[in-house]
């Protein structure tokens, strides 16, 4: 059997807490941004921030940063597929 056990990387409480503070800050940021009355355009802004937060959670809380290459690739594929599903649908919606 192929048993290449990835050695476990222990993330200290401290670094986890830092990430947490960062996430809280970003949350505050989105709320603040949304109050600036930039109209619908800020959807992209909030999404960008949300994406960053998601990135942090995945990389540190979910330890993706310390996983092997395989998992990262698979995650990428899954997200790509979702993006494609949405993207191709818009070929219909935008040109109707």
């Amino acid at each position, binding site marked *: *059997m192929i048993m290449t056990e990835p050695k476990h990387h222990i993330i200290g409480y401290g670094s986890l807490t830092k990430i947490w503070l960062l996430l809280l800050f970003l*949350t505050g940021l989105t*709320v603040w941004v949304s109050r600036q009355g930039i109209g619908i355009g800020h959807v992209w802004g909030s999404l960008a921030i*949300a994406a960053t937060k998601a990135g942090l*959670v*995945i990389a540190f*809380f979910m330890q993706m940063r310390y996983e092997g290459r395989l998992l990262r690739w698979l995650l990428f594929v*899954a997200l790509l597929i979702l993006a494609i599903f949405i993207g191709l649908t*818009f070929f219909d919606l*935008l040109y109707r």
Partner: protein
Amino acid sequence: MSSQPHRDDAGAKLGMWLFLFTELLLFGGLFLLYSAYLARYPHEFAVAGARMHLVFGTLNTVILISSSLLVAMAVTAIQKGERRTVLLLLGGTILCAAVFLFNKYLEWSAEINRGIYPDSPRLNAGPPGESVFYSLYYLTVGLHGLHVLVGGTLLAIVALRVRQGAIHAGNFVLLENGALYWHLVDLVWIFIFPLYYLIL
């Protein structure tokens, strides 16, 4: 696993991630629908979004993020072999889940009192885009709430196994997977929050 030669943590983790992908796409379908209708009714969505209870939304965001921190810490703790801390942290997480759901309950009853729920007379009378927005809101958040419930239960079970000592520094893949699932619940909410509460 019964008839399995020897334990395969990496395999278990791979399996869990694959499962998370399916969850991702499950919600993905709803987000696809959301984006489609947002493109069609930007104005109605903005108006409806502005009427959401931002306080609840923000509060719940903070709660979920913090709970995520707690499970993440639990994973660290188990590796350090600090059993009691693990239990405390998991307890904290489950508490967060409970509070989150309670807030949801308050929020939903508030909405329903305002006569806002799928197929409500008020929505059917209002502009089309609005009822679409709220229907999507109830479905997405409802589905997410269901996941919070499941995740909470899962972590409770994990906590139990930790107390029994079935999960320990030498074998904690179950805890890890439970944590992964909980983080997914958090992830989904991270996107629900701006899309439904901050659109204006």
